[in-house]
C-alpha cells in the first residue's frame, strides 16, 4: 500500500514537473508527431496507392507542386527503396532526413536538459538555431515555392 502511494506520488510529481517545462512538452509532442508521420509512411504504400490525402494544390490549379509524390517517397524510403523514392520526389530524402534527425535531436536534447539544469538556457538557444538552420536547408525548395 505504501509502495503504491509512493509510486503514485512520484508520478504526480513528474506530471507537475513536466507541466512546468514547456521545452520538454514541445520535445515530446514533436517526437510524437514525427513518429505519426513515419507510421503513416509505413501503413500506406505506393503499390496499393491507398493514400487518404491527395494534393489540394494540384486539384485547384491543375499543376503539380514541389511536394507532389512526397508521401510515396517517404513510404519507399521507409521500405529501403531509395532510388524509387528519389524518382517520386527528389526532395523526399532530405525532408525524411530532417524528421529522422529531429527525432534523435528531441531525445538527445531532452536528456541533456534534464541532466544539466545549469545549461538549460544555452541548450534551448543552440536547439532553436540548429533546428532552424536544418529546417531551412531541408525545406528550402518548399519555402521558395511559397515566396
Amino acid at each position, binding site marked *: 500500500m505504501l509502495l503504491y502511494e509512493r509510486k503514485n506520488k512520484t508520478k504526480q510529481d513528474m506530471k507537475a514537473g513536466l*507541466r512546468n517545462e514547456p521545452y520538454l512538452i514541445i520535445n515530446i509532442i514533436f517526437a510524437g508527431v514525427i513518429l505519426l508521420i513515419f507510421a503513416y509512411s509505413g501503413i500506406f504504400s505506393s503499390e496499393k496507392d491507398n493514400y487518404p490525402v491527395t494534393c489540394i494544390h494540384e486539384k*485547384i*490549379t491543375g499543376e503539380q507542386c514541389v511536394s507532389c509524390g512526397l508521401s510515396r517517397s517517404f513510404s519507399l524510403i521507409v521500405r529501403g527503396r531509395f532510388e524509387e523514392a528519389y524518382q517520386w520526389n527528389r526532395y523526399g530524402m532530405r525532408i525524411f532526413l530532417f524528421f529522422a534527425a529531429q527525432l534523435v535531436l528531441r531525445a538527445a536534447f531532452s536528456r541533456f536538459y534534464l541532466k544539466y539544469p545549469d545549461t538549460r538556457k544555452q541548450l534551448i538557444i543552440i536547439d532553436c538555431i540548429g533546428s532552424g538552420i536544418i529546417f531551412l536547408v531541408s525545406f528550402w525548395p518548399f519555402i521558395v*515555392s511559397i515566396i
Partner: protein
Amino acid sequence: MEEVKKNTGQNLGIAALITAIITFVLAVVPCIGLIAIIPGIIAIIIASVGLSQAGRNNSPRGVLRAGLIIAIIASMISFSQIFVAGKFIGNPNKRLYGIHNFINDIQDNVTKEIEDANVSIKVESNGNKVEINTNANKKDQEQKLEDLEGGNTLKQDSIQKHDSIQKHATVRKKK
C-alpha cells in the same frame, strides 16, 4: 485547491501546442498547406482561451505562449499557400497556352497521317458493288493534275482545289 488553480489552462496549453505543431508540419508542405489553416485557427483559439484562464489564476503560461506563437506562424505559412494557388488560378493564360499547343500538335499529326493515307470507299446496292480507291498523297495528286492539265498547275494548290479541278477536267474529257 491551490494546485488546481496553478494548473489552470495547462491542459489547454498542451492541446494548443499539439495542434500548433501538427499545423506547422502540415503548413510547410505545399500539397496540404491549405488545410493547415483549420487546425491553425483552432490552436490559436485554444491557446487564447487558455491564456485568459491562466491570466485570471496567475498560473504559468509558457506552454500556452509557445502554442500560440507556433500556431500563428503556422497559420501565416498556411495562409500564404492561398496566394501561391491564387497565382496559378489568376494566370489561366499559361494553362490555356499549353492546351492550345497540345491541340495544335494533335492537329498537325492527324494532317500528316491523312496526307499519306489510302482511302477506299465501297458502295453496295441491289447486288451491285462499286469500289473507289484513291490515294490522298499530295504529290500523287499534283502529278495526276499536271498530267491532265499539261503541266500548267500551281504547286501551292491544296488537295481540295486539285480535286475540284480534277473533276472539272474529267467532265471536259467526257464531253
